[in-house]
């Protein structure tokens, strides 16, 4: 039985009242399964429908049609069953300003009917580097600390399925590492993880399987290794101080001084270098590397536009 099963899920948001806008189809017939124990990545640009899909899974929102099962239970008809099995870290950095960290975690345990949970709460605080903040009011915590509390709150009831919606947005490197070590450990212990992120290196490092969403549709669904193997090209990468000629600029991914061009053959590499020479430009640090998830992502998103 899959840990999560999305079955023909569609979601349409009605046009705003009084506005001239049209109804928005946020999800269009989305179907895929996530197996027990998988570390699964859900990727897509902003507005692709990732958060909408997770909201439907978590019961924060209802599908217009289709259904979602968590370990065989319907998220609408058996919501108490499915919510007990899910630990959801929401994307927004929200907190209750009235309480301290330990109180927040005790309340959350209580809502799930978990009693005498202090041992597990202490373990969570320890693992997330929050032990010395247990009695701090939520308002006094930095953004990164609040994010850790969100993770702890999602895990108080030891859910078998963990859902992380952009957990590392605006989080420093140290916390990211602490967080991933902890989540990877939980995954090894058998927890299923569903992750959405904009950091594609993270997804590449952690996820065994990926779904890519674009405008509410699944445009790729594959294991990470197949996805990378199937990438059609290598990448020519160099640094340059000047503006690229139009022939190159149209194909390149440019980050500051760094230029990356998809290269399907040695001939193509020669063409690029010739174009540079003819334009009288000087490139530094030239290298050719294997395509990574980011290249695949851009490829998939570009191909479907």
């Amino acid at each position, binding site marked *: 039985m899959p840990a999560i099963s999305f079955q023909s899920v569609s979601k349409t948001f009605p046009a705003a009242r009084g506005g001239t806008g049209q109804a928005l189809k946020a999800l269009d017939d989305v179907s895929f399964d996530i197996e027990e124990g998988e570390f699964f990545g859900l990727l897509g640009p902003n507005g692709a429908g990732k958060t909408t899909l997770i*909201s439907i899974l*978590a*019961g*924060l*929102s*209802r599908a217009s049609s289709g259904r979602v099962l968590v370990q065989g239970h319907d998220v609408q008809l058996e*919501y*108490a*069953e499915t*919510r*007990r099995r*899910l630990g*959801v870290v*929401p994307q*927004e950095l*929200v*907190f*209750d*300003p*009235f*309480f301290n960290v330990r*109180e*927040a975690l005790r*309340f*959350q345990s*209580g*809502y*799930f*009917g978990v*009693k005498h949970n202090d041992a597990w709460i202490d373990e969570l605080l320890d693992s997330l580097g929050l032990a010395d903040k247990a009695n701090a009011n939520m308002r006094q915590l930095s953004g990164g600390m609040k994010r850790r509390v969100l993770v702890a*709150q*999602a895990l108080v009831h030891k859910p078998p399925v963990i859902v992380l919606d952009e957990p590392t947005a605006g989080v420093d490197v140290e916390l990211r590492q602490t967080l991933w070590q902890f989540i990877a450990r939980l995954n090894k212990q058998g927890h299923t993880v569903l992750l959405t992120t904009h950091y594609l290196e993270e997804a590449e490092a952690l996820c065994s399987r990926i779904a890519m969403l674009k405008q509410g549709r699944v445009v790729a669904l594959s294991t990470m290794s197949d996805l990378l193997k199937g990438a059609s090209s290598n990448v020519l990468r160099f640094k340059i101080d000047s503006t690229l000629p139009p022939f190159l600029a149209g194909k390149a991914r440019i980050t500051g001084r760094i230029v990356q061009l998809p290269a399907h053959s040695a001939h193509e590499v020669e063409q690029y270098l010739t174009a540079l020479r003819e334009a009288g430009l000087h490139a530094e640090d030239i290298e050719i590397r294997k395509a990574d998830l980011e290249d695949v992502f851009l490829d998939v998103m570009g191909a479907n536009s």
Partner: protein
Amino acid sequence: MSGWQMLLYKEVLRFWKVGFQTVAAPVLTAVLYMLIFGHVLEDHVKVFGQVSYTAFLVPGLVMMSVLQNAFANSSSSLVQSKIMGNLVFLLLTPLSHWSWFLAYVGSSVVRGLLVGSGVLMATSFLAMPALVAPGWTLLFAVLGAAMLGALGLIAGLWAEKFDQMAAFQNFIIMPMTFLSGVFYSIHSLPPFWQGLSHLNPFFYMIDGFRYGFFGVSDVSPWLSLGIVGAALLIVSAIAIHLLRIGYKIRG
């Protein structure tokens, strides 16, 4: 402690942590009303033939405080959680709509009774009315607080901004409490306004509550009980329905 009890506990703790604002301030306000109206009107007004105005005023002020604070508790907690976004912590839990209802209304009743007791104790130094039938008093206090707690729940679900919340409170709850006989016996009103007051469920709450003190009231306490009970059932049914369908909280 089961899920709804934990939520009830959290909701009580929430207002208790800001007790100056949620308990002490309303008590002080009621005492000020008492001092001013009592001072101005004591010698001019007699109610039910023999009851002094100040003594008459005490139960009215107590009940008004119970009702307003019960409403304020559930409504402000919900609207704040919605605006802060932390309502998501509850939305992710397996708590049923019944659990939400019990916890939010329950904490409203606790705050209402707490503020009510505070007002009664503070004003009893100025004029202690007899307490002829305390059972009636307590019954109407609990029913009234529950009804306003449920009404606050509805308002909290409906309102998307503090402005809308304030409108609900100032244009519906305040007039209905003030025009229900807190400061006067409706027998002193012209027939038209007497008739209109009989359409206001708040009138029956305060009249029934006052019966417990004096053993005298404008209408029979049984009639008040029937009407307040029915109003509570209707408002609760609406609140539970809205929670069940996730009105404005689940997309």
